[in-house]
């Protein structure tokens, strides 16, 4: 299936769950609501029209500082500002972050029999509102176990129904979630060995 057909098929199947969809550089992307994730994922895996047997990747993006990077390109000694080069003009238009929410959990599916790929994005609110929580896909793909643990470790997004949601790359005593944009890149924490 081409990207456009794939998006159309999913939109027809889930008129409620799909919030938006687009195809950019040939990558089909659907943005779905959190409630419909399990249902969409199960359909993608089991329906003969999709047959997405691989869950290639689970990750997340923190959109809280998207497009807000200050331009440092001026000479502080002279005060002369130099405009950075304009963006390279783009024939395709990317519609922007999936929603006003802070986070998006990003799933990459692949179908080996039909050879198509799909990106599914689930926008999520901030963790401070106890909102950054999404259903776990461990019941459908065993590989989701570690991938979701990594997202919890790096972004502090919880996965409802995960059997063993603990840190994976960092240690239990680590404070904070380093891939959030408000975690300073040069912050140091004491190294503590694993506790049995």
């Amino acid at each position, binding site marked *: 299936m081409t990207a456009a057909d794939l998006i159309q098929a999913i939109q027809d199947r889930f008129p409620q769950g799909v919030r938006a969809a687009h195809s950019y550089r040939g990558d089909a992307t659907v943005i779905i609501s959190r409630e419909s994730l399990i249902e969409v994922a199960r359909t993608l895996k089991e329906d003969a029209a999709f047959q997405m047997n*691989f869950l*290639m*990747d689970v990750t997340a993006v923190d959109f809280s500082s998207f497009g807000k990077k200050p331009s440092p390109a001026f000479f502080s000694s002279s005060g002369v500002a*130099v405009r950075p080069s304009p963006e*390279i003009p783009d024939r395709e238009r990317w519609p922007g972050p999936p929603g006003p929410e802070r986070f998006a959990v*990003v799933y990459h599916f692949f179908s080996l029999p039909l050879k198509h790929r799909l990106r599914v994005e689930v926008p999520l609110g901030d963790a401070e509102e106890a909102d950054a929580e999404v259903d776990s896909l461990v019941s459908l*793909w*065993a590989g989701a176990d570690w991938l979701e643990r990594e997202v919890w470790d790096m972004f502090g997004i919880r996965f409802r129904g995960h059997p063993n949601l603990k*840190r994976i790359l960092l240690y239990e005593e680590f404070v904070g979630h380093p891939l959030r944009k408000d975690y300073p890149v040069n912050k140091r924490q004491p190294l503590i060995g694993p506790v049995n």
Partner: protein
Amino acid sequence: MADLETRDMLLNVGPAHPAMHGIIRIVATLDGEQITGTDVEIGYLHRGFEKMSETVDYNGVIPYTDRLNYVSPLINNVGYCMAVEKLLGISVPERCQYIRVIVSEISRITDHLTCVGASAMELGAFTVFLYMIKAREFLWELVEMVTGARLTVSYCRVGGVKGDLPEGFAEGCRKAIEETRKVLAESNTLLTRNRIFVDRMSGTGKISGDEAISYGITGPFLRASGVDYDVRKDCPYAVYDRLQFDIPVGTRGDNFDRYLVRMEEMEQSMRIIEQALRDIPPGPIQANPETGRPIPAAEMVDQAKVGNIGAIADRRAVTDPTLDGAAKPLHMHIAADEKRVFLPAKEDTYGNIEGLMQHFKLVMYGHGVRPPKGEVYFPVEGANGELGFYVVSDGADSPYRVRVRPPCFAIMSALPKLLIGDMMADLTPTFGSVNMIGGELDR
């Protein structure tokens, strides 16, 4: 005897254990010699690749990608650069694509040689390890010839590669392939029908194709379980769709099949390199009769100092082709035709104002390559499986988010599944066939 109390034993293996290459901790629960449960702990080599990538410009990520899978760093370079090129919507010249294919396949062979050699060594076959490291040395000499480094290569650039292939590369490559074939034939006779090796490898660490897919396992590990998924065939990138090669597929999904698949893949990689060397469009390295005999750069400078312009007027200076932008004629074959992405040739930087501006617009802090807002995922076939880069841009000079999908992460998550039910001594061959690379696993 019946009323004696029996208890499971906890055995801690790692983080630094002599029979394991890589820093990982496995806490195994043993019933006698049988493994009944494992707890795998990773993250000892976490260096924050994804966080660091957000702080540097697009080309600045390339040295970090070298340190992901450090046994085949060139594939990481290629994967990252192709992901950013997809984001930019540009394509690189054909010769550059062939160069990328050649260096990727050389890296794949070095990776498989290391994996097979190291796991053979852990089973006592030290000779094979030395033979394979010898073969790897021939290939790393080629890598050194092309990139100037052995391990931290940083060869690709967004929109091209650092430099063209050096003179004499094709001959050197053919010679290295010949040597590698000899080594593989020798190792084959030493291992494939070796009773000790076969007994330890076959039937251990089994996983079925469906289970492997469920874990997201890709690469030779998946193919040994009978699923013929290879990114090079199923989602071809660069020029793989023009090259003839076969995908070896196993049947039993055990350690021995993984060994056989890796051995055959090395042969197929050599086939690809030979075809690519045959088909690669000629670059300026091949002598250009019109510009006359190229002379060394130092000689040219000496002639110019004494004013002997006539002797050097139409001559080409011999400069090191691995130098970044050393010669203008090289550029059009290895760099995308997009001035906002790739550095100009040094002759242009020093010789005219457009080149100078182009150069500074790319290297100045806060300027640089600025892809449009967007997100892409680009997979390549790494030595361990699908190596995917997910790049998000917000229009600034540094990536908003870089995510790498490490192939051995998925395999490691299946490690408990592979080990439970086997003997403690089977841990070594199973872990060896996983080919865990700490840099890629922990990032």
